[in-house]
């Protein structure tokens, strides 16, 4: 599956060492990466990704009141819980046959845009960049740091940091200028979020049928002043990211192979357009394409579909290496969708969760994560899609689809153009993101900062639309409804780090089946029943190692960069051991950089 071509010439006899990082913690579950590294040839030969935590939302949601689903599923995650609430609201709206009033839809969009601004900023600048900061580079690739000292930043005129080494120093945890500024910005963006959705990260004003936010002019002006305040930071961040990542390719030739895999991307779309969306399944193709981030699937650089109905019907939950008993012999919940299309037994609507705890065995079953795949009717393959950490797939699909056209963000000619207005110190700026040649760690990271700009541009558009409604006196933000005894619904959204779907079946007015599928099951899935590795495994396997340290002082920074490029929530603690269980470090917190490496 990996696109990486192995350099077999002049290969030395292998010196395979087992290396494991467990847990690379994230909010939901415990992620572990188990690798075998060939130090003689500086390559990862094998990788397994595993989760040691069972959550069971699909088990305990059964029998609950469906109106509670948004509040309960929000607790799946402590950093993007609002994405779950939003997705649940979308699924419930479909199930109850209602739509949010337009003003409520703009408010949700504004809240979600603030969430993207917040989360991408804090992840990129306070977590991803720890792997690229001066302290880390000095400890892993001193030659690169020496070169960075002598390399001028091409875009220093925008971000003000004269050399690439100055950029790296600004990324140093707790001390660096960018690190600290990002913390300040993430507080402002959280305030923006709270203005719209009441509370971060579990919204208090988001319900099926609308919101409880009072659409006063001051709510929107408070949001706007905060947004304008961070625009300088966003513009500088894009320039700074471009400088750093362009330098990385120059300084370490071949680095494009780190975290590289086939372009297999999924995006389920974000930001509904209230003039089109009615949440009826029968019209899902149309309102899906009207979303301000286009849903779609990209395979090998080609856009396969933008049809949410097709995307929905192609989802398959495979087992193979997961601690679950199969459910195919159970009675299906949904045999046909509302359009009459057959629904597969492996579709989330029909899934029943039967946990089977057992010992971890990398030859057999080794993870609590199932293996979500997308069945491509054309090729007959079950594709192990990844989300590219979220922004990469969102920008890729939106660029290729060319359906988004707003005053601040447009998708045309295979690229996304973002126009940000003049801000406190910087003039108006046009940014352009085009699909890069590779799906690798650097490009996933680079896309993240461009999506911050995308979300800022979209927020400006949503504000203008919302203010127009306020000026017309429209203050309606909720719709009443009854919960039908028997109904189904599905919601598609983009969690910050990628695709998010909620599938619900209601019987006797209660939840009979509920399956949320967030991005990390897609990205962190183990080998499926066909033996296809999940995206983390695929991206890390056969990856070259550029770190200058040998096995004794190995930090695994290249592997970490590859895994973290997928945004596996908060990588805040890493346990690392070498060979036959000899512990090198019992606690490894990458936030502390070199001194604690």
């Amino acid at each position, binding site marked *: 599956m990996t696109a990486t071509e192995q350099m077999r010439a002049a290969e030395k006899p292998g010196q395979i060492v087992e290396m494991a990082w467990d847990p690379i913690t994230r909010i939901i579950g415990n992620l572990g990466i188990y690798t075998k590294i060939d130090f003689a040839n500086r390559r990862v030969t094998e990788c397994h990704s595993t989760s040691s935590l069972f959550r069971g939302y699909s088990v305990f949601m*059964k029998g609950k*009141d469906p109106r509670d689903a948004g509040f309960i599923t929000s607790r799946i995650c402590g950093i993007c819980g609002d994405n779950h609430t939003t997705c649940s609201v979308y699924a419930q709206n479909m199930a109850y046959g209602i739509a949010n009033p337009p003003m409520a839809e703009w408010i949700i969009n504004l809240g979600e845009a603030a969430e993207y601004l917040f989360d991408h900023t804090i992840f990129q600048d306070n977590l991803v960049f720890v792997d690229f900061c001066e302290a880390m580079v000095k400890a892993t690739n001193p030659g690169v740091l020496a070169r960075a000292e002598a390399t001028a930043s091409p875009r220093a005129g925008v971000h003000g940091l004269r050399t690439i080494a100055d950029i790296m120093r600004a990324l140093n945890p707790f001390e660096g200028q960018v690190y600290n500024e990002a913390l300040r910005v993430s507080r402002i963006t959280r305030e923006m979020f709270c203005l719209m959705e009441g509370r971060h990260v579990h919204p208090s004003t988001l319900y099926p049928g609308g919101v409880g936010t009072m659409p006063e002019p001051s709510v929107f002006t408070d949001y706007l002043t905060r947004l304008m305040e961070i625009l300088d930071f966003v513009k500088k961040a894009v320039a700074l990211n471009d400088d750093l990542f362009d330098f990385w390719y120059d300084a370490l030739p071949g680095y494009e192979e780190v975290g590289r895999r086939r372009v297999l991307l999924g995006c389920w779309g974000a930001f509904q357009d209230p003039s089109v969306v009615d949440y009826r399944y029968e019209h899902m193709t149309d309102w899906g394409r009207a979303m301000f981030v286009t849903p779609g699937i990209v395979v090998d650089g080609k856009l396969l579909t933008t049809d949410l109905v097709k995307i929905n019907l192609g989802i398959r939950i495979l087992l193979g290496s997961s601690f679950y*008993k199969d459910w195919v012999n159970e009675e299906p919940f949904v045999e046909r969708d509302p359009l009459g299309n057959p629904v597969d037994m492996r579709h989330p609507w029909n899934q029943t969760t*039967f946990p089977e705890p057992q010992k971890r065995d990398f030859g057999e079953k080794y993870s609590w994560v199932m293996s979500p795949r997308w069945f491509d009717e054309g090729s007959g393959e079950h594709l192990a899609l990844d989300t590219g950490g979220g922004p990469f797939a969102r920008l890729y699909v939106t660029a290729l689809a060319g359906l988004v056209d707003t005053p601040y963000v447009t998708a045309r000619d295979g690229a996304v153009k973002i126009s940000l207005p003049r801000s406190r110190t910087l003039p108006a700026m046009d940014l352009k993101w085009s699909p890069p040649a590779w799906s690798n760690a650097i490009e996933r990271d680079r896309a993240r900062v461009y999506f911050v700009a995308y979300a800022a541009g979209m927020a400006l558009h949503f504000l203008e639309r919302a203010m127009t409604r306020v*000026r017309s006196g429209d*203050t309606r933000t909720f*719709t*009443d*409804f009854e919960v039908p005894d028997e109904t189904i619904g599905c919601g598609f959204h983009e969690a910050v780090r990628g695709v998010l779907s909620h599938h619900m079946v209601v019987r006797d007015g*209660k939840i009979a089946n509920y399956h949320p599928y967030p991005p990390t099951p897609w990205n962190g899935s183990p080998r499926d029943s066909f033996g296809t590795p999940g995206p983390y495994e695929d991206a890390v396997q056969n990856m070259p190692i550029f770190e200058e340290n040998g096995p004794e002082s190995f930090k695994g920074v290249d592997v970490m960069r590859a895994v973290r490029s997928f945004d596996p929530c908060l990588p805040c603690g890493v346990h690392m051991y070498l060979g036959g269980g000899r512990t090198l470090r019992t606690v490894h917190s990458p936030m502390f950089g070199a001194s604690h490496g």
Partner: protein
Amino acid sequence: MAPIRVGEPDVRPDATAHVRGVREGNALGSYEMEPGHHLDGTADARRSTGIRPGERNPISPSMPNLPPG
């Protein structure tokens, strides 16, 4: 739950969701029942206050009626 042994539940899974007899916010007709909310999506000052709301409406009919919070 396959081979996992679990005890009898103490309460119904939806016990906390709704108490019979209490009006549900989502019930049909809720919007119309709310004071100051008009069917066309606009509202007047009665949405926010019951104390002389008419005096808090805009002085010109051409202005949008935006209740003060």
